[in-house]
């Protein structure tokens, strides 16, 4: 284990932050993940995942502009750090390695 542990939801959030390229913040992330995965996402889950990622140093954040919709409150915009990017690459490598070893079509487990 030479890399930090990344939970499945954290990984999705981190990927989405990377995909949104600087425009990622709570609500947008929620909608994006919900749209991509089709599962119900609640704001507090997104927030806690972001907090954890920030604590691990995989994303960093800065305050954005306030909008009227937010009642004049500012957004917190997230971007992926180099460490975050590395981690994503590593995760991807692991997955691709594993995929490449699957030569035959899937041998499915069949109930006997």
């Amino acid at each position, binding site marked *: 284990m030479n890399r930090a542990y990344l939970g499945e939801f954290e990984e999705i959030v981190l990927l989405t932050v990377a995909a949104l390229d600087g425009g990622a913040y709570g609500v947008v992330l*929620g909608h994006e993940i919900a749209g991509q995965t089709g599962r119900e996402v609640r704001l*507090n889950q997104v927030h806690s995942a972001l907090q954890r990622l920030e604590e691990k140093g995989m994303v960093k954040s800065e305050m954005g502009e306030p909008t009227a*919709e*937010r*009642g004049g409150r500012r*957004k*917190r915009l997230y971007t992926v750090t180099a460490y975050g990017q590395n981690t994503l690459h590593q995760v991807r490598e692991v997955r691709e390695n594993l995929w490449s070893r699957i030569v035959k079509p899937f041998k499915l487990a069949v109930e006997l």
Partner: protein
Amino acid sequence: MKNTPQPPVWADKILSWICAPHLIEIILGDLHEEFHFKVRKSGARKARLLYWREAIGFIKPRYMKRQKSSYPNTSIISHDMLRSYFTIAWRTLAQSKVYSLINVTGLSIGLAAAMLILLYTKDEVSYDQFHSNNPNIYRITSRFISPAGAQTGVGGNTGFLQGPKFAAGVPEIRAAVRFLGTQSDIKKGNEIKSEEVFHADTAFFSMFSFPFVSGNPQTALREPKSVVISEEMAMKHFGQKDVLGKSLLMKDSYDKDARFEPYTVTGVTRKSPQNSSIKFEILVPFLTKKGEMERGMNWFNTFLNTFVLLDRGSNVSLVEKKMNLVYNADAKEAMKEAAEKYGENNKTEYTLQPFTDMHLSTDLPANNGLTGHNNPQLSYILTGIALFILLIACINFVNLTVARSLKRAKEIGVRKVVGGGRMQLVAQFLGESFLLCLAAFIFALMLVQVTLPTFNELANKSLALSYLFDIKLILGYLALFLTTGLLAGFYPAIILSGYNPVKTLYNRIQLSGKNYMQTSLVVLQFTIASFLIIGTLTINSQFNYLINKDLGYSDDNLLTVNKSNLTREQAHLLRQELQKDPNVLAVAPKNGGRWNTRAKVNGNTEIGFTYETVDPEFLPIIDVPILKGRNFSADFPADSITSVLVNETFVKEAGWKDPIGQVVDFWYDNNKKYAVVGVVKDYHYADLSEKIGSQLFTMKARNSYGRFFVKIKPGTESGSLQHVANTFRRLFPLDPYTYKFLDDENRERYEAEEKWRQILLFGTALTIFISCIGLFGLATLSAERRTKEIGVRKVMGASIASIARLLTANFLKLVCISFVFAFPLAYYSVAKWLQNYPYRISISALIFLEAALLAVLVAFVTVSFQSIRAALMNPVKSLRSE
């Protein structure tokens, strides 16, 4: 924006309150944005609902945790600051040992006094509370109503009938217990002792909670010849505690026909608690003689206490109403008879008094076999003194801390400059005061432990610090501690923390100017002190007056011996036998106890009087002269049938110009009429808390004697006492022998007053002492502050005397101002207190003068010590340091 739907306000409020401040902006922003998105998607109603759901999702520790500040913590309880506070506090205390000592001494004395009083009050308040049937136990009391409808008096006692009749007629009354104390003789071997024996109905032990060591409380009083005794009595009489089934030989002391009869011990109880109105050593079942329950006149014969147990939650006034219904129906005939025979036209109305109210009741005190009744006035006086002492100690603390603050001004300035907030300073000074208070508190606890035995003796209590293991008392002490700490520390903390740092560091601060707070506090202190001095002096002289007042008769070398049912023949024989010893000068029998009755004079005027049954020797033996007419005499054999003597007050009340030969009509006793043959000079037959009333002396043969007086030659006590004791034992082998000197007995009447005088004296001395150490501290400080001024004055040629006067005069002025407040207050209270005594001293200016002199003198001595020291100082020393 007006018409666009808004998210629920309350959800936002709750979130902003719960979530960490550095996260709330983002959380709420996202929530709102999401809300507006949802409104567009699925409408306002649903969006609101979802909003709540989302919002609740944020109530998690992750979002509540407050952000750590990157600056060091400035909170009051930070570790480093706390250490600094303790160091500084310790240094200040250690540096000025005198002030610390004054403060701790004063506060611990004040706290100790307050603690003692708290213990005392707790005991007073807890009186009779230990019975598990409280608050449903009541005593039957009565009100007497004149025909005009006015209340003429109240009574706490009842008779044979009230208890059983009310219990039978009022369903709410579950049980009634009559309780009567009598004197009985107890025989152990050949020895006969007289003991107080109580009689109570069978329900006694189910109504009251007296723990049994052995025996069954329910059945203990069922059999007529059973007896319940205390452990002490068991040890005393049998020498062991396991005495169930043994028998005790007893007989009524006052019944001349009584024989010793065996009573079987059916129960042994623990010693009655000290805070109990009912204290018994021997308890037997209450027996009513045959026919007494049917005699209607017994409604008016009251001589015992009746207690009733009501059903839980009964309406007391309704029960009272029902009781009076029962009474008015049952006693109809008797009331008519009383009105006809005795002209009794007052109506009686029965009332109920909660059992726990008896102990401190002034109108309906616990008496007639119930013990420990206390005057609530004394509790108030005690509490007042304790509060005064504590207050004065707190004032010392405030004054000294503020006066000394000049020295700490720099510290305060520096603290403020480096960023100490005002609240921090307040907390620091309050903390210091609490620290000091804690030390004082610990000393006070020790002080209480040490002084408790003395206090117990003075206040006639058996208190112990182990009383402390009671949640209420611990809370009380805790409150006392907190109040004292706050009271003493609050004002200095506010003042000290308010200093302007620029001024304090520039070193031109002038605190010595007009300090009205300090002046007025000193005035308050001395107002209290002078008030107490005046009070103590007055009480002192009043008690001296009571003890030394001429009672109008001679009680020197006069022995009194109780002998119930002393017949005329026995008295005669006794006198003959006793006077065989030439040291016995005279012997005179008299009725036992005190009798009161009424009779008619001038035809139809009724007079109530004290009714004395004597013989011709009685008045000479106590040295009371006959003013008019003659004494009873053996030369007039008809005296015992036809003659009476009356005292001056009787004559005055009857309005007689020529009393000799006037007729006193005992109309209810077969219309017997007696002629007055002599007028006796008034003397104090009762104690001085009572005005001399009408008194009538008779020799009527049917009245029995209950005691006799023996006058012995001075200085022959041992021989004469032996002779009297031997003669008594020989003549009355079945009667217990106890004697007393009458002058001792008279002194004992004022024992309570004597004790209170001591307590007051002690309290006042403490108050003065604490005031003075405070003044001493202030004088020291003021001398210190003016060191340079004094030096300059001396260099310029001022004399030592003039400097000492300068320093002293200020304080003496304050003491004198305090008199302006103390005198009117003291005059008012003292006058009010003296009204309790029919025989009292007049308030003289002398007492006030004495008090003023004492206060000034004490203050002068305290202050002048420091003043003279300051004045004697070498000016070179004080000026060199500039």
